[in-house]
């Protein structure tokens, strides 16, 4: 199968002809998708477009009905969420899913679970290796809280008592704690006011550029975000992919996508698109359209 986008290097994540059916409903239909290393990619689309389904297939909550999900050169579909996380994909949730009654620090420490090595025997005997690891994990937890702008003053605060915006940040810190290569953010700015949105956008950029992995000798990571807020997506993403009713209808640079008729139609309805293109058959033709789009 010919690559849809000419890759500059080996892509970090590649979705090959992914299909997901729930009974008779096809939620995601034959989507091809590539994420470059160290990029910020936006995944947008109207409600019910299949964005979160696609996300859940990457993170192992769903298994694709057909197609392959390749992460870092390895096929990951069929793996359990915890195994996917161990391979380096961290995520946040659309509706915040922190461990509400654990403290902020404990949340971040739980995130580091899959990077810890202490066995049951080590725990019971409280070996020096175990104590050292606990100390490291705690120190890194505090650093991560600091990094996302929560600061250690909130470390011992129960997660559910944090303000809404800080809960979103804590979720990002917890995802970073799993030491991901790819960070998936599901509507990270949902429910935030413009000021908080700006600050969070800056944080996402900062994470992409300067995140320091404890295990790999490289700076930064790759981000894939779902977002409803067009302003956020267009401002932050280097590439944008648009899904509509489970089908990829456009892909490219933000400004290209913004002026794409299919996208405008998907978001605003047929009448608006008609002005540009003159009539029906748009959805039917879309796959050819997106294939014809120049690679950037």
């Amino acid at each position: 199968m010919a690559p849809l986008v000419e890759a500059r290097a080996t892509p970090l994540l590649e979705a090959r002809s992914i299909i997901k059916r729930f009974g008779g409903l096809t939620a995601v239909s034959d989507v091809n998708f590539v994420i470059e290393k160290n990029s910020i990619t936006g995944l947008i689309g109207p409600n019910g477009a299949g964005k979160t389904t696609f996300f859940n297939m990457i993170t192992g909550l769903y298994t694709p009905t057909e197609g392959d999900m390749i992460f870092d050169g390895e096929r990951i579909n069929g793996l359990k969420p915890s195994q996917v996380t161990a391979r380096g994909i961290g995520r946040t949730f659309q509706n915040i899913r922190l461990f509400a009654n654990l403290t902020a620090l404990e949340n971040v420490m739980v995130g580091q679970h899959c990077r810890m090595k202490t066995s049951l025997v080590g725990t019971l005997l409280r070996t020096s290796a175990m104590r050292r690891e606990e100390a490291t994990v705690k120190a890194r937890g505090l650093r991560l809280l600091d990094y996302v702008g929560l600061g250690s003053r909130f470390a011992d605060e129960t997660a559910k008592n944090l303000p809404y915006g800080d809960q979103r940040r804590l979720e990002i810190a917890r995802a970073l704690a799993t030491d991901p290569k790819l960070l998936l953010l599901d509507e990270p700015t949902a429910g935030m006011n413009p000021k908080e949105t700006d600050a969070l956008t800056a944080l996402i950029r900062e994470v992409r550029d300067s995140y320091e992995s404890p295990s790999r000798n490289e700076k930064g990571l790759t981000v894939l975000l779902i977002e409803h807020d067009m302003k956020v997506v267009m401002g932050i993403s280097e590439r944008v992919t648009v899904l509509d009713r489970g089908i990829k209808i456009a892909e490219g640079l933000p400004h290209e996508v913004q002026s794409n008729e299919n996208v405008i139609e998907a978001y605003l309805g047929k009448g608006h698109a008609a002005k540009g293109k003159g009539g029906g058959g748009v959805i039917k033709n879309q796959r050819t359209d997106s294939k014809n789009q120049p690679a950037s």
Partner: protein
Amino acid sequence: MPKPVRVGLLALITSTLFMWIFGNQGAQVIVITALLITVLTVVGSVFYEKQLESILSTPVLPGLIGLLIVSVFISQLSGLSIIGVVIGGMVAGLLFSHLSLMPRPMSIGLITGLASAAFLSVFALQDHPVLILGGLVAGAYGALLASPMSVTIKSGLLTGLVGIVFVLTYANERPSIAIIGALLGGISAGLLASQKQHRDTPGQGAIQGAIAGGIAGLSTVAALLLVWQFIAGASGISALEFAEELKETVPGAHALGLGSDISTMLLLIVMSLAAAVLVGALIGAARTVSGPTGNLLVYAVLGAVVLSLPWIDRAANLQLLNAIIPVFVFILLALGLNIVVGYAGLLDLGYAAFFAIGAYTTGMLSSPHLGINLNFWLVVWIAAAVAAVAGLILGAPTLPLRGDYLAIVTLGFGEIVPIVFRNLGGGGATGSLSLSFLNWKLLDQLDLTGGPSGITPITPPKLPLVGVFTPANQIPWFYLIVAILVFTIFFINRLRGSRQGRAWTAMREDELAADAMGINIVRTKLMAFSMGATFSGFAGAFYGAFIGSIFPSSFEFSVSIVVLCMVILGGLGNMAGVIVGGLLIMGADRMILPEAANLIRDIAQTKTGSNDIAAYQDLTQLRLLLFGLVLVVMMAIRPEGLLPSARRKAELHPDDDTRKQEDSDLYDAERDPHLAGR
């Protein structure tokens, strides 16, 4: 004249008239009605209003109509005159409908007093002076507890109940129980007082603890005097016999050459008070020291009290160990179940299965039954390992299940395991195992488990200096179970604060999110089942060896439920709470209820000459009813348990500030044009 006084006078006049007209039965009627109304008001207020006052201040007329119906019902049941019941009911109704107008101590005292009198009348003490006296004393205590006073004194009065209950049930035959009662009351008083009000210096802490402990000791001593003067006589023990018991059981009475019962009694009182004050002061002082040293000191004091128990028991000839040891076994079970239910949030209703597996492993490997007679010290580890593996095997099918479904499947396992053990032996065609391969008979009529009659005898453990553990000397058994408990607490404590413990908590909070954060759910769940099972394997091995024989009927469903009750009553997820819950429930079950039942039987015999009492008067028959009631009331008024973990408490009582935060988020969302447009 203020209304409460008027009502009170009215009630007094009516009830006097009423007693005069109907004679002896009158008191019973009043008391039964009052009991019913107490229950109804308490239950009603707990479920519908959550506060006593509002339901009690409802208009009188509907209440009276309700009472009329209840009265007819009672008169039908009891065969008493309906007029008597109605009048009695009205008196009680008037009293209760105006409870809210009284000061709180008075109303609480009244309720306690009437409820106790009702309790006494149901349980064989249909002796009016005793009934009235009991009601008055209990009422006064209730009123005292409800009145405003310093935290220290209140702690002492509250925990003094422990000593009171022990003394009331035991002291007619073993007066020196007062020492144990005062010791337990004193240490709880010290702990409670320091919990409610923190002191800064050890000196202040010691004084606070000593006062609280002293109050608890005084309550115990008061109960002792009550037993001496009234209850012992009522239970058929003459003053002479009681004096004899005093001399035999009070440690040091012989050595000091005390002759008269009063001097022995004084010695006992002094010893009880000294014990209560001493432990109260020690624990109070230890609690003021912060950090690990402080914890160590508190553990040291608690440990000293626990370790001294068998020697006090022996010196005072109390023979309590036979009851205390099973209590500790059940606490061990509860600590194990707490891992599964409290930490990992997996509701396991079949926990007794692992207890059975541990016990049967010991039975099979350490008795002449199969001819394998391994050393107990080896078998205890094998039993724990077998239970751990069983935890994995029984846990595996439940992995995809959550909540109710998990509970149902574990319930099934809990039923299956004892039945399997019952059917794997006993001889005959069905009760034995035969297995042949081609023509070789691998197993021929093997009786594996002894069937319904179980395995007996199980070889007791043996230690170099101690020798063979025997039923006659239970001190080694006591120290063995305490050692196992300490070992268990130590390791569970390590697990809780570790990577594994965090994984359990995270899984309980949000399984999906935990999975997405890289926690292997399968492994984490199986680990919880397996670790929980391990500790019940220890419990099973010890229990089998201690009892000396095991039967399938020792591991039925009620065991799982009682252990679960202990965990829930004490506080899910908190080891201290689970231990307290275990002490209360099993202490009541194995120590208080049987003794109380004996006492009631003795009193009945003294009064009527017959040993028969009605089934509803036998407290040991009512144990499950009582546990059920306790659990229902706890769930309604304090779902997080007596000593909850901070986390559970937060879950069940969302803080007001969280709610405020949510409200303000909503408000922002409505007002924010950016969001409103979405």
